[in-house]
């Protein structure tokens, strides 16, 4: 090991560039970035997809594909990693330098047990370790990362673990050899919000035990705010701003950072002001324009910005907070005020809004959707029932937005898909515009479909890749047998309505970006001029800067057309930005329902409280002073039979109750009861003393 001088950083990245050669032009994924990580530090690297944040970290690990061209220097504990060959690097990887990947399912080898895979990490760096000794140590590591019953679980295969448990196992593997630096590459992106909170806790714990430095790569500003000491912001392969977390969040000096911070909704304040949307999108890394890569999207760009690329240099007096902008001095000095760079857009003028009455346009009563759980190929047999939706009721008035929130598996998507069938549910009723769908004939049902339309989550999957977008958008009109000329006119109108060019009608979906494709999906949803638009996670597949534009568009469309929206989402801040009312779902039931500000400011159900407290806030000061309600374990399978209250197996309130009170939770299924203007399904609302920050 090289001699370590005092004050030498643990990791020093100097002028790192990564290029992927392509026939159509080299993709310059990372360009000339330099930063350091000190012993024990927590660095957050934030950026949108394509910013180069993961590529730069994989370059440190030496795990880029063979065709990548890596230039510059990476010094780890004084050793130059880029000069080592695969064999030499493999002695450092997993021992002093370890990494946690995003998707814990595909990151674990499906055919070996968890214990074998953790043991492998140990035995690779300690050839004297026996199999048994490695397994004993693996059990210990699993216990550290909070996996219950580790002696048994160590023999389980990855597919027998839930997503959260797999990510815990990945962390166990990463800390197995007491590394000096742990790189966490979007470790919680694939997980639900309450599980994300658990995993981030485990990561903090792992950092405390090993004393390692952590480099956390994420697109989520809230996660950074709550955990990092320092933040690096990346854009189009460049490091554009670097500094202590408070400096970057409260006094950003790069317009991109300013815009990004103003484009994310904050769960505490969302809905009170409009989001800033960043126009356009990042440049193609294969054909970068000269000058600053953000110039084309920057409202305060000056001619110089499209000529020279700014260097990452300090501005003002603070030498620890450099940024790459020609006008950063003005921003730091306050002569170019931050709100003036990205002013918040105005809401739709009242005069342009469609008049709406309070008529109820959609009412769902006690809807049930159960799936048989079967096993076997030819001779299927029923081994249980999945209660995906188990007695859900809600209604929506004209011009209002109802949000349905909950984690994956809670039944929120099944609820709206069942609604969209427009047939009698297994139990209960669906009434659209005063007509019970159970009584409709096939012709009436098709006619009614023009009043209720859906927009899906993944804009890439929601449109047929083989049809030009004009056909895609006009498709609901084909189903309604609208003649071709009328259809073409309407398609042009719709494209303009969602902010696209009417001339794009003959382009194919793959020519559009994610945000544009989602606009196409929305245009299709509006084609038949519906009264109700159902949205299934419409922004969760989009980058934050794009997300704001789609949310603003939906708000404007709702107001201009007098639409009622059913908005299904897991991101509570996004939901608060757009919705009037909210229904929180857990295992097929609504557990809390009411006006969104009331529910979010004073959550009453322990599950709502846990959800609220797990949602990261992009505000470091707010994150520091929060008190959290953490949930134990994972969401139970909807096939599991739980008597009484479904939430009691994970309920933090339940644990505080006396036996008599607990008996009620076990014995009696709570119904929604009105309480202070909202409805809550909990027996012990009165005794709820949990504090949510």
């Amino acid at each position, binding site marked *: 090991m090289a001699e370590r001088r005092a004050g030498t950083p643990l990791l020093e990245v100097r002028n790192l560039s990564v290029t992927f050669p392509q026939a*159509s032009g080299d993709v310059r994924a990372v360009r000339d970035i330099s930063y350091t990580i000190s012993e024990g530090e927590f660095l957050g690297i934030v950026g949108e*997809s394509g910013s180069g944040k993961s590529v730069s970290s994989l370059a440190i690990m030496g795990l880029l594909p063979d065709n990548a061209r890596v230039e510059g220097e990476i010094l780890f504990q004084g050793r130059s990693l880029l000069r080592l060959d695969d064999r030499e690097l493999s002695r450092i990887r997993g021992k002093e330098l370890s990494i946690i990947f995003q998707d814990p399912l595909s990151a674990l080898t499906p055919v070996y047990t968890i214990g074998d895979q953790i043991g492998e990490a140990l035995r690779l760096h300690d050839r004297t370790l026996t199999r048994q000794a490695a397994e004993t140590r693996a059990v210990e590591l699993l216990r550290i990362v909070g996996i219950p019953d580790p002696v048994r679980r160590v023999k389980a295969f990855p597919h027998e673990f839930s997503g959260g448990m797999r990510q815990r196992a990945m962390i166990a593997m990463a800390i197995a050899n007491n590394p000096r630096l742990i790189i966490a590459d979007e470790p919680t992106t694939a997980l639900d919000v309450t599980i994300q909170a658990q995993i981030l806790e485990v990561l903090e714990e792992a950092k405390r035990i090993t004393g390692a430095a952590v480099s956390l790569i994420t697109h989520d500003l809230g996660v950074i705010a709550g955990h990092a000491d320092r933040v690096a912001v990346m854009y189009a392969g460049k490091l554009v701003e670097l500094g202590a977390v408070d400096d970057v969040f409260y006094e950003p000096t790069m317009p991109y950072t300013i815009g990004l911070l103003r484009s994310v909704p904050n769960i505490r304040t969302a809905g009170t002001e409009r989001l800033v949307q960043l126009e356009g999108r990042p440049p193609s890394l294969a054909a970068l324009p000269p000058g600053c890569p953000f110039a084309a999207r920057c409202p305060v760009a000056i001619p110089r910005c499209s000529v020279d690329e700014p260097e990452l240099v300090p501005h003002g007096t603070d030498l620890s907070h450099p940024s790459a902008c020609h006008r950063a001095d003005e921003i730091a000095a306050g002569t170019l005020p931050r709100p003036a760079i990205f002013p918040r857009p105005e809401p739709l003028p009242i005069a342009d809004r469609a008049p709406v009455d309070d008529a109820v346009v959609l009412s769902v009563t006690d809807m049930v959707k159960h799936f048989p759980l079967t096993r076997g190929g030819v001779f299927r047999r029923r081994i249980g029932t999945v209660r995906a939706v188990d007695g859900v009721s809600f209604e929506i008035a004209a011009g209002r937005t109802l949000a349905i929130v909950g984690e994956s598996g809670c039944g929120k998507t099944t609820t709206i898909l069942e609604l969209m069938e427009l047939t009698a549910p297994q139990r209960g009723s669906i009434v659209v515009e005063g007509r019970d769908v159970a009584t409709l004939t096939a012709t009436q*049902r098709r006619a009614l479909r023009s009043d209720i339309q*859906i927009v899906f989550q993944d804009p890439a999957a929601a449109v*047929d890749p083989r049809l030009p977008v004009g056909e895609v958008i006009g498709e609901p009109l*084909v189903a309604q047998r609208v003649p071709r000329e009328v259809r073409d006119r309407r398609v042009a109108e719709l494209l303009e309505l969602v902010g696209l060019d009417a001339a794009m009608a003959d382009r194919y979906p*793959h020519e559009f970006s*994610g945000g544009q494709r989602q606009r196409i999906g929305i245009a*299709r949803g509006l084609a038949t001029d519906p009264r109700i638009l159902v949205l299934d996670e419409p922004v969760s597949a989009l980058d934050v800067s794009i997300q704001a534009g789609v949310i603003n568009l939906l708000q404007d469309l709702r107001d201009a057309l007098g639409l009622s929206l059913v908005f299904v989402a897991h991101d509570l801040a996004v939901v608060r930005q757009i919705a009037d009312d909210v229904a929180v779902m857990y295992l097929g039931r609504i557990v809390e329902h009411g006006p969104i500000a009331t529910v979010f400011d004073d959550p009453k159900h322990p599950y709502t409280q846990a959800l609220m407290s797990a949602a990261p806030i992009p505000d470091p000061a707010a994150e520091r002073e929060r008190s959290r309600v953490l949930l134990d374990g994972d969401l139970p399978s909807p096939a599991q039979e739980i008597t009484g209250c479904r939430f009691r197996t994970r309920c933090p309130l339940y644990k505080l109750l006396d036996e008599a009170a607990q008996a009620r939770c076990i014995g009696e299924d709570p119904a929604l009861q009105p309480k202070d203007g909202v409805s809550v399904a909990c027996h012990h609302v009165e005794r709820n003393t949990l504090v949510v920050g």
Partner: protein
Amino acid sequence: MTLSSIDALTEKDSDGFGIDVPPDERPVRGRRSLSRNGLIWRRLKAMPRFWIGGSVLTFLVLFAFVGPVLSPYTFSQQDVMYFNYPPTTVHWFGTDQLGHDVLTQVMVGLQKSLMIGFIAGPLATILSALIGSFAGYVGGAADKAIVWFIDLMLVLPAFFVLIILYPFFRGASWIVMTFFLALTGWMIMAQVVRSQTRSLRERDFVKAARYMGFGPWSVVTRHIIPNVASLLIIDATLGVGAMILAETSLSFFGFGVQLPDVSLGSLLDAGDAAAVTRPWLFLAPAIVVVVLLLAINLVGDALRDAVDPTSKVNHG
């Protein structure tokens, strides 16, 4: 191969490395980008395999259909000067024991084999598309019955089934045999189409079409079939080769094309007896069969790679 073109075909937002190279960040303004078919064609054009296979195939088609016209001999004409002659300048591929010109015989035989292949291959594909998409989209009892029937058909190798069915087309025209070939060659593709349909049925754009009010037939024709079309085209292409192979094997053992018709298989059969002593009788049709199948497989394989580049791009 560009990242964006991979993305366009697989509709994935990452390039498979799990690294954040931007998915599809070409500006929509500016140069008109290619449609999906354009992309496939551009990739095909870059593959030598496609050009080699394609030109050999074109040559063989011309050889089979134009060749006999240009040939100085007819198919049944006997050259009494030359019995059992090895290849000479007069008879390029030699002659058989009756003085038939082997070259002309091969041309005519190839003609029949090509016709059988180009009818039976696509026919089997159409069958598999209809049956597979129906079973996959409708589901339920019909699906189960079809799956069981496919399993049943797969219990015996097709060659075996054709031997058992042989008495049904013995003595009939070659066209009947062609239909029997197609009837025994659709099952595996039908399984593929069925599973593709099942996964397409869960895709959002198909759900969306259902929620717009389209019936099953409209959904299948508007969305399902077009989305498996490239698969079907590949299968039809490779199917031509598979059917020619099956025809050749059957005819070789006397279960296929019968006189007065000749195919490559029956020529091979005729040449077999003298394979060691007068190898040209066997080698001429054998070489034509191998070159033909090679050309078809090269084209089919190139098509497959052009449609699904993820199976080939330099991953790692």
